[in-house]
């Protein structure tokens, strides 16, 4: 079946690559590639959110045409050196392959008719993702960042699952930066992130699965358990297999805290405490042991991922006033597993992910 023309038309409106191609053809696309390569390398030396005043990277579409901009404040042979300049705001890749740098560069409007420009603005207080755009002759297009990474051009990839978990916990889940996790909260009038939506486990699984699919290198498959098809062969929430290895990871996802009822009108009658995490660990141990019996030659590792949305003293929907101490009470409350993991090198408790409330810290 051919692609839907309406879908292609919508997509064409969104894709900055197409806009650049239409505006500046191959020279524009070449300049775009150079700009993106530069951004990616620069971000490998200095994290995007450390560019507090923003960042701009541009490359001329035609080096033979004078841009008429001011001489650079500094010049660098390498991006590692450029990243070390505290005042860096704007970089141009010059025709000699060196990097011209400014503390306050030219305005985008003054150069985009002759160059491809990438602009980065750090997230403001209300947004958790940065604002990134590609500017080209005659227009601009935003750079999508649906996963909520520090930058779309600083998308992480990992060989090790535990490194992937660590990044996810710190950078995407803790503040619900990921687009999926934004929808896991029941929104009260002040959007304080105190209560979860009904059946939040669906969102947590989807968020983690999509993240692992786009970050784990050499993963042969990252499979999510279908609710309606839960079977003995795939009882865990997420299963990861790697290419050319007999390595297999089983991931069980649990959440702690309170959620709404099905109707969304009140708190559900149940709430989950750390006992739920211990139940999840027992389940995981059972799954791993069962899989060993079926696949004795495979290396199986089990991981329990706990999303912790516990708040102290929330008893209504919508919740009453909550003190900062109560909102943040469980931030450092680690779950103990009472000897369940003794002698088990095949079961890992990955970091409990404390989901931060939108309440000032105590």
């Amino acid at each position: 079946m051919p692609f839907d023309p309406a879908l292609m038309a919508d997509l064409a409106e969104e894709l900055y690559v197409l806009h650049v191609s239409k505006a500046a053809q191959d020279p524009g696309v070449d300049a775009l590639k150079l700009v993106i390569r530069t951004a990616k390398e620069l971000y490998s030396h200095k994290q995007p959110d450390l560019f507090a005043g923003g960042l701009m990277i541009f490359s001329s579409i035609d080096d033979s045409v004078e841009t008429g901009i001011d001489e650079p404040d500094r010049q660098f042979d390498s991006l590692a050196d450029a990243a070390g300049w505290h005042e860096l705001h704007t970089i141009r890749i010059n025709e000699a392959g060196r990097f011209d740098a400014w503390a306050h560069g030219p305005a985008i409007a003054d150069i985009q008719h002759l160059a491809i420009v990438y602009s980065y603005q750090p997230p403001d207080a209300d947004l958790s993702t940065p604002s990134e755009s590609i500017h080209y002759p005659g227009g601009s297009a935003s750079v999508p960042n649906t996963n909520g990474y520090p930058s779309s051009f600083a998308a992480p990839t990992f060989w090790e699952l535990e490194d992937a978990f660590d990044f996810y916990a710190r950078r995407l889940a803790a503040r619900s930066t990921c687009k999926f996790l934004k929808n896991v909260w029941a929104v009260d009038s002040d959007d304080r992130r105190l209560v979860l939506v009904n059946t939040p486990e669906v969102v947590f699984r989807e968020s983690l699965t999509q993240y692992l699919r786009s970050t784990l290198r050499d993963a042969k498959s990252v499979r999510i358990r279908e609710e309606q098809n839960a079977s003995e062969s795939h009882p865990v929430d997420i299963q990861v297999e790697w290419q050319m290895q007999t390595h297999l990871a089983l991931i069980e996802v649990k959440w702690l805290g309170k959620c709404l009822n099905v109707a969304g009108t009140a708190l559900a009658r149940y709430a989950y405490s750390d006992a739920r995490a211990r139940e999840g660990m027992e389940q995981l141990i059972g799954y791993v042991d069962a899989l060993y019996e079926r696949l004795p030659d495979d290396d199986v590792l089990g991981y329990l991922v706990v999303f912790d949305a516990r708040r102290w003293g929330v008893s209504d929907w919508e919740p009453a006033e909550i003190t900062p101490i109560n909102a943040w009470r469980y931030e450092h409350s680690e779950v103990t597993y009472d000897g369940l993991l003794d002698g088990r090198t095949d079961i890992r408790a990955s970091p409990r992910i404390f989901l931060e409330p939108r309440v000032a810290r105590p």
Partner: protein
Amino acid sequence: MHESVATFDALQLIALTSSAENGISESEVQTLAYVACILALFERHEVSTWGYGFSVTPDGAPFSSALSDATQTVCRLGWCVSDGRQMTITSNGITELKFQTALAPNRIRSRYLEGSAALALTMPLPAIAAALSDEPGLDRALRFGRVVRLFGDIALEKLVEQLTSLNEFLRWEDRDANDDDLLVPAAMWIELMSRSQAGEGGHPHAF
């Protein structure tokens, strides 16, 4: 013939990703070579002219034994070095690649490999592999859960339908000579695959 083109493809893809991605694994070489082959189909080449075939594992990853052998060859000959996970090109490899790129058949396929590798600038390598699982041939293999030869009749017909519609939408046959970069159709195609997975109204990935 398939050994020499596979060797060139492996060397070229490793070179193209050596600095931006810090190297590439064998399975990632397979993925990008597959996408390059798709781009050749997009420009209406016959699949038989690619030089080697692909099959697909039950988990839906494209695989070519010729390409697998080639990735080992390029390391054995000192053109690439492997750290056990990913391969990067050596100075000897750069010299060899320069020589091989000058050969007429390789000049043509270079465009497709460059278009494929350029995707990795705008989309993480794992995301490219994940997006591919909805490609008709790979999808069919996933459904049947067994090793199948890719580009078989049914899957090829569906894939060609998709690529033809994309070709016509982009008016690719009428393009200017200066409007030749395959990153454009590669980006559109992989995003269409990615949205097929997410369902209608799925999220744009990167472009």
